[in-house]
């Protein structure tokens, strides 16, 4: 049975995400980890494939790996390659997990948001003064 998990990047607006709180800061580098699990009673070959796209739809990572034979109810961690997170917005990922090397059968997938990236605004009020007649004083002027 295929486990299909769909989340549209467009249903989660950036505003909603910002309201939710944390997001991935711009300028970081990303690395995807996915664990595939063999839910059968027999050992099976597991193969993974995923594609990461930036908010403009540009593919930044296309990854595939054959884990070989994985025992019954065992899992395997697939680790992709690093990519720069250099655009704000919703980054997406489409993951497919396959079995049966000779004629691959997709057994699980995820297609949706990878992360929401926001610019981290940084600034400070480093000086504040009050000018009265020809006099200026640092606020608070007491």
């Amino acid at each position, binding site marked *: 049975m295929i486990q299909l998990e769909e989340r549209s990047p467009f249903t*989660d607006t950036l505003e909603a995400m910002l309201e939710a709180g944390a997001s991935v800061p711009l300028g970081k580098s990303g690395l995807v980890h996915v664990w595939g699990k063999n839910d059968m009673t027999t050992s099976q070959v597991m193969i993974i494939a995923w594609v990461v796209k930036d908010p403009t739809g540009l593919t930044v990572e296309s990854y595939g790996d054959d884990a070989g034979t994985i025992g019954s109810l065992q899992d395997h961690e697939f680790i992709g390659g690093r990519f720069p997170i250099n655009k704000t917005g919703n980054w997406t990922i489409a993951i497919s997990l396959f079995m049966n090397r000779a004629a691959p059968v997709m057994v699980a997938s995820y297609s949706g948001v*990878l992360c929401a990236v926001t610019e981290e605004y940084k600034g400070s009020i480093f000086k504040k003064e009050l000018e009265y007649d020809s006099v200026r004083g640092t606020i608070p002027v007491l």
Partner: protein
Amino acid sequence: MKAGELLIAYVWWEGQPGWISILSSNNWPPNTNLTTAWKVRNTGNEAAFFKVRFMGLTSAGALLSPGGEATLYLYPVTPGPGTYNYTLDIIADTTVVRQYPFGVFTGVVPVPEYKGSVTKKELEYNESRGIIPVSGVLQNKRGLFHVTARNDMSTSQPIGIYWFINDPDGLIAEEYTDWKFGTLGPGQTHEFIGDRFTFSKVGKYGTWIDLLMGSKDSPVVIYSARYIGELCTVGAPEYKGSIARKELEYDSVRGTIPVY
């Protein structure tokens, strides 16, 4: 004085395991090339060229001193079915010095009525074994075919097997033939085990089995034991897997995808 005698004679034709003595009355196959060997002796008191003549053929000559012996060969072809009387002439130089009559019957060589049966047909698959046709065989698993044959005759017989296994597309997945070493006793069985093969396709696999008796060189198919039919049904396994966890690592932070 010229004189001679026949000491012994043999005949052979293709399919015979060895030489057969030529008797005064013989049963030979019709329309068959024969090799005959005639051993003669010069019983006269002078040397002479000895030849033999049989079924219209004359052999090469051999110079024999008194008491000398030679084996002379002739290669006649037997006539069609019937009963025939022939004479062997022993010739010394140009004189027929002795004659021997031989009767030849060239009827159809009786073929024994072979009787055998296939008593069990089993397929080994998925670490189990079942009488064919079996179902529940999973794609990409290995199969091993076992066929048990029985000699239903009252005499020991050589026994052999032939089969092929075809995949759902009609292509040969396994072809196998073998003969039991030696012979199989009356009422005894022998299990033939094929070679391992892979069920690479989904669908129905079939088989054709022929039980063989007689000999390896001239096998006789026991049609009553023939099986043409289904071997098994192969299905695709229900693959089940899941994405148990997915994370995005950015610098020293890791978050569950989607990372908001």
